[in-house]
């Protein structure tokens, strides 16, 4: 039915099957939209946030999707600036994932503010001292860059490409993509860092506060570093999931191996930096504020030392070792496990830097604050997941997202024929 829109030389599932799954995820999306409208029209009383938990699930989701969406800027940097040419075969998908992640983050932010119609005040009345201001500016600009990077992909659709104007536009946009990749990397460095700074500058919150260089706390650099490490991990993970669902090889192994190796070294160096940061904070920064290290990990039903072990050892040290060793990367189950843990590590780190910060009591006569999100919060957090899946489905079906797919398929057919 829609075969004229499908890229040449590749096979896709039937239109009926495609629509069926689109409807399923569309229903989930609709559920999220209902929750979103409830929050917009009835207010944030629809959530389980409270005056102790001004920041909660949504801020975590924002930070997490931006971290795992970091694959777009880092892969772009490697491809266009550092000349890792093999990565041209995965950059489209990295851009798509980045586009989904950043558009989701902006949507969640729009739901998360108490006066959504005043959202523009952040630009109009900008406070240059606030990390959130830097986040807003860089995030919006980088989303524009991602949109510019995604547009040529749309223009490459078989039917759109027939129009000479769009064909030339797409061609020319590809030609200047290095400029956008460099701009994206520059902007990402700042907004990923500012997101780390959001927690790190909170000198009233000893669990979050970090010293640093000039105006930037160490978390500024750690967040950027972890996004550069975990973003490619997430890109590899989603590529693997897409391959499993489509039952096809979409990206050649050497491309995955290269990206995995770079991600592994980034993750390994990040983990070392994170360990040093944690050690310094635990022995110098927190005690100076009157806190023992274990104050932050005891006397509450959830946050034990396990979460630190999970973040640093299980999601940092272990995947680093797997990804930097050739043997580790060679075995598919180890590679996939490692990239999963790497992406999870960024999510755990963001959780800790948002929700545990809110949970830890600072006044001596208060106790731990616990929180469980309302269904509206959960639905609006799942909304971007459904939206992301739908956009990947549509993009995969109608756009040449994976440049190697056709030749891999042809080789497969040729080998069968032989």
């Amino acid at each position, binding site marked *: 039915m829609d075969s004229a829109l499908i890229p040449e030389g590749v096979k896709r599932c039937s239109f009926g099957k495609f629509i069926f799954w689109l409807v399923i995820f569309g229903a989930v999306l609709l559920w999220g939209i209902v929750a979103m409208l409830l929050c917009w029209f009835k*207010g*944030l*009383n629809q959530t389980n*946030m*409270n*005056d*102790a*938990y*001004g*920041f909660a699930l949504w801020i975590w989701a924002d930070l997490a999707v931006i971290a795992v969406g970091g694959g777009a800027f880092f892969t772009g940097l490697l491809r266009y600036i550092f000349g890792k040419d093999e990565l041209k075969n995965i950059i489209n998908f990295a851009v798509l994932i980045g586009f989904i992640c950043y558009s989701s983050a902006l949507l969640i932010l729009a739901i*998360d*503010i*108490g*006066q*959504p119609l*005043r*959202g523009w*005040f*952040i630009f*109009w*009345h*900008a*406070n240059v*001292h*606030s*990390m*959130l*201001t830097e986040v*807003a500016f860089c995030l919006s600009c980088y989303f524009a860059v991602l949109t510019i990077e995604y547009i040529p992909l749309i223009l490459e659709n078989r039917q759109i490409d027939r129009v000479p104007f769009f064909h030339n536009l797409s061609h020319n946009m590809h030609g200047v993509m290095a400029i956008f990749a460099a701009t994206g990397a520059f902007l990402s460095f700042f907004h990923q860092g500012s997101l780390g700074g*959001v927690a790190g*500058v*909170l*000198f*009233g*919150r*000893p669990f979050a506060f970090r010293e640093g260089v000039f105006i930037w706390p160490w978390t500024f650099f750690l967040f950027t570093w972890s996004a550069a490490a975990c973003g490619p991990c997430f890109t590899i993970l989603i590529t693997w999931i897409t391959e499993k669902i489509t039952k096809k090889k979409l990206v050649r192994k050497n491309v995955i191996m290269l990206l995995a190796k770079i991600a592994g070294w980034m993750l390994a160096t990040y983990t070392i930096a994170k360990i040093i940061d944690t050690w310094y904070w635990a022995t110098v920064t927190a*005690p*100076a*504020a*009157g*806190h*023992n290290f274990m*104050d932050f990990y005891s006397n509450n039903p959830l946050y034990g030392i396990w979460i630190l072990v999970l973040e640093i050892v299980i999601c940092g040290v272990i995947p680093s070792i797997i990804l930097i060793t050739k043997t580790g990367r060679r075995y598919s189950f180890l590679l996939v496990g490692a990239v999963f843990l790497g992406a999870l590590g960024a999510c755990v780190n963001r959780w800790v830097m948002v929700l545990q*910060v*809110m949970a830890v009591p*600072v*006044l*001596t*006569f*208060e106790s731990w*604050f616990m929180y469980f999100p309302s269904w509206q919060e959960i639905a609006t957090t799942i909304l971007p997941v459904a939206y992301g899946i739908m956009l990947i489905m549509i993009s995969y079906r109608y756009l040449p997202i994976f440049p190697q797919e056709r030749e891999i398929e042809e080789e497969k057919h040729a080998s069968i024929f032989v």
Partner: protein
Amino acid sequence: MKEQHKHTKAKKYGMVIDLDKCTGCGACMAACMAENNVSFKKDESDKLLSITWMRVYKLTNGKKFPEADICYLPRPCMHCEGDHGHAPCVSVCPATATDYSHETGIVSQIYTRCFGCRYCMAACPYHARYFNWWDPVWPDGMEKYLSPNVSPRMRGVVEKCSFCFHRYQLAMDKAYIEGRRELEEDEYQTSCTQACPADAIIFGDLNNPGHAVTQIAKPDHKHGGRPMNPNAFRLLERLGTNPKVYYLSSRRWVRRAGDNYIKDERG
């Protein structure tokens, strides 16, 4: 008037709360709510959802009878000065909806500019900032009793204690009409100060050596306002928030409850 303001001496309004005098009656809380049009709901049992610009905490020394002891601690906004006005909440607000006045030392909140990101709440270690989770709904007829000097807040914005700033404005207006630039100590007092039946709350200008707050707390301005009175302390002093609310207590455990200390550390 703006020109005249520039010529007035910078104030640093602050408070001293004598915890040995506080009985925990809650008159300060009630007075604050009435004075500042603080909204409330039918069910106020969840204190994490109620707006209490002034909140009285109950502290215990954790010991059993006969050594058991309690203390009530009223907690308004601390109007932190931080480092040169970089209060924890002020520096983080992305829309400049909260500001530190170097003229009065008061941390303001501009309700019509706040867009409800709640970053300031995350930054405040005292939980002195409150979010309007609901629209303010007053019982029938109560709108007529609202103070015309304080704007009620809308859903979706953050609010907090203003040290009854409208009273400062009214007092300054009166002073200007009378041709004065400076206020007498009793001309500007917060509602909680006036409501306290035990005289536990004292309010005034910490820069004015003649004011009771300065004489009692003896702030050392060269060292971030640290109190020189041995019985005076500030909440979470070592975080560097530099608050302008001082507490007094002759009891060591109460003073120690004001801050965190690592094991075996003396405080």
